[in-house]
């Protein structure tokens, strides 16, 4: 980039400043470098674990495809893991053997549920029965005897013509045709001891 002569002098002065300025103090630089190296080590450790996991994953994938390659890393790890699981399970079972035995006993002592046999697969038939007869207490009034309803013939709303109807005779009143308007017998007044507090109302009712 080209500058005007006056500006070029300024640029030259600026470039002279390039080598000036504070240098990194040795102690500060050494401590900063040490901290940086420790950061590298910590990240490297994390990366190492991650890389190990990746390697195992890759080895497991390779082990499934290459069966003929002898004992691969995946099969070895699988064997070790299965063995560890079996050992762990056996230890747990041994420690809790009493509880396990009680559990099996309790399971075996539970009564089995008895199944109730169901007879007949179709719906139960409807038995046609006589309807109950209505019995009325004997009164002086003429009573109407209930008519017997013929039993249903199984089918709903069957033929009405086929039903038997019995008509009973209306009973005779026996000179007592009941209380009718104008024929009610007049009650007879009986002389009873009237209580002294009872007063007979007379007059037009204005008395206090």
């Amino acid at each position, binding site marked *: 980039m080209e*500058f005007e002569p006056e500006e070029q002098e300024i640029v030259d002065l600026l470039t002279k400043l*390039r080598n000036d300025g504070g240098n*990194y103090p040795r102690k500060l630089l050494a401590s900063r470098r040490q901290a940086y190296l420790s950061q590298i080590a910590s990240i490297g450790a994390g990366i190492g674990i991650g890389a190990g996991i990746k390697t195992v994953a890759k080895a497991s994938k390779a082990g499934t495809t290459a069966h003929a390659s002898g004992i691969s890393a995946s099969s070895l790890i699988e064997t070790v893991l299965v063995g560890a699981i079996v050992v762990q399970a056996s230890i747990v079972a041994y420690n809790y053997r009493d509880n396990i035995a009680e559990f099996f006993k309790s399971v075996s002592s539970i009564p089995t549920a008895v199944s109730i046999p169901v007879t007949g697969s179709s719906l139960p038939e409807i038995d046609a029965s006589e309807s109950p007869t209505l019995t009325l207490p004997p009164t002086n009034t003429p009573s109407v005897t209930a008519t017997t309803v013929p039993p249903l013939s199984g089918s709903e709303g069957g033929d009405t013509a086929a039903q038997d109807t019995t008509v009973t005779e209306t009973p005779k009143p026996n000179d007592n045709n009941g209380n009718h308007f104008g024929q009610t017998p007049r009650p007879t007044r009986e002389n009873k001891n009237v209580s002294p507090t009872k007063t007979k109302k007379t007059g037009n009712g204005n008395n206090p």
Partner: protein
Amino acid sequence: MTDGVALLKAAQKLDEEALTAIFDQFAPAIYKYTLRLCHDPIVADNIVGDVFAQLLEQFAAGKGPRTNLRSYLYQTAYHLVVDRSRDNQHNAPLDVAVGTYEKGQFTPTQSQIEERVMMEALISAMNTELTEDQRHVIILRFLEDFSLKETAEIIGKEVNNIKVIQNRGIAKLRKSLGMQLGDGW
């Protein structure tokens, strides 16, 4: 260049030697750049630590720079400085450069004294006259020797925009030095 690419590829695989070599190669430069911006040696040291910690995290996550490692490191440092300056309302002066320049243990000649005066005026103008963007661009372009494209990548702007910022910054510096040092400027 080939060594740089090989170093970068080895670092991406978290090779310890490559990562250490990267630190040894770039940590002093990053420190100097950060110190020019933030004025505080402790803050500059912390920023260097953050820069390389982020680099490690990026490499561990399978990310990070693919081509220009140096530009990437400066970019990270730049963002960290900007974040800190926003938090602290810090003005990012360049007094450290002045201080070290003044502490030179030699007997200056006449020309050296004149040059020293000009340097002081230049640094003062950079701290007072330039905007933050102009100061960053000037530092990256002329003190850290990055190209326009690399500077644009670091700051996150277009190359043409960087050109404009740079030219305006230089013009401001020239004007300021002319006012300070007389008509010779």
